[in-house]
């Protein structure tokens, strides 16, 4: 299950991003883009994220996965359309389709919770 190595890399980046916000800052939501062509299963990713986030700044954070629909453009007719992940030929021309989207594996943003300085001190 390579989702575990990916989740661990994700957590390393979250910890790195939160460092400037001080020791009390926590990640509350993590937004991930996963292209439909990646061999990454959202359920497995959720499970691995929960396991890998134990004891980190993202423990208990919600992982929001945005699944990106694959899109491509035919090298022949130039028509752009959504593509079935098993079909990379243009249904009209039988020519290869150039990918425009669907291969993402991106940590897009992090929602950070930090103690309010006014209420805290």
């Amino acid at each position, binding site marked *: *299950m*390579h989702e*575990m*190595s*990916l989740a661990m*890399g*994700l957590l390393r*980046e979250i910890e790195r*991003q939160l460092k400037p916000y001080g*020791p*009390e800052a*926590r990640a*509350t*939501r993590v*937004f991930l883009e996963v292209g439909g*062509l*990646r*061999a*990454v299963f959202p359920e497995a990713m959720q499970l691995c994220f929960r396991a890998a986030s134990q*004891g*980190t*700044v993202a*423990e*208990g*954070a*919600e992982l929001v996965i945005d699944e990106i629909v694959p899109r491509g453009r035919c090298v022949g007719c130039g028509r752009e359309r959504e593509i079935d*992940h*098993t*079909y*990379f*030929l243009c249904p009209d021309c039988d*020519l*290869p389709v150039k990918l425009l989207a669907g291969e993402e*594996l*991106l*940590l*897009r*943003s*992090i*929602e*950070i*919770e*930090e*103690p*309010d300085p*006014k*209420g*805290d001190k």
Partner: protein
Amino acid sequence: MKFDREEAARFHRGHGKPPGHEHPEHQEPVQEARHAELRTTAAGAAGATDTDTADDAGAQGPRKAARTEIEVRFDLLDENRRDAASLRERLREQGVFAINLMSSPGAGKTALLEATLPRLGAIRVAVLEGDIETSADAERLAPFGVPVVQINTGPFGGDCHLPAPLVADAMEKLPLSKLDLVFIENVGNLVCPAEFDLGEARKVVLLSVTEGEDKPLKYPLIFRESSLALITKIDLLPHLDFDLPRLEENLRRVNPELRVVQLSARSGDGLEDWLKWLSDELGEALRASD
């Protein structure tokens, strides 16, 4: 981490010890109750979608918190990709052509190497053997007298694929300046190895005829990433209801540019086609580096 946060929260409420205090068993019961309440509030806030919830939670609880969303745009595969790129550059400098062999377990990667190694003539070759456990495959290749380095992913959490840093470390154990070709035999798996660039020059996927002609549609990524597909164990075709034309059509659907070679390491059928592909690719790489 959570421990620090709760300690800090108690401290700010004026209930006692400063953060980092190390004897929570000395707390009074009332503090334990608030402890639990804080935990519940935090869990509720994390599951909510309204970003104002943090302030609500702060109003009930002991502390106010502000939530902000920061844009990151970090590609999860970049780390491995960077390691792979520097390995690829190192191999190019040394004039070494690396091939990443991928397949499900038992498709015939090691058998292919056993059939290939004695037929390489003057090509100086080495093998990196990736497995979760055991050095059984490295032992199978020992009689061929080529350098073999076993990589076990077991100590690294039993990873189902080889990542670039492990391959880079293993390459350092090889006499790279005295080699032309390195086969990287990946961990047997049709899913995970496809995601990880190893700095190789070419990816080759093997599919045995006993696995079924639908595999390219079920695991398209590995077939999309590869330059060549080897259909192995074709000596078994007379015993199977295997639809070879349908497999070839499925391969073309997922990767119209994929080259396909059918072979049997056991009977030797098709090995010439594979060796020709190999020498063509190797020759092209050598000419390009001159």
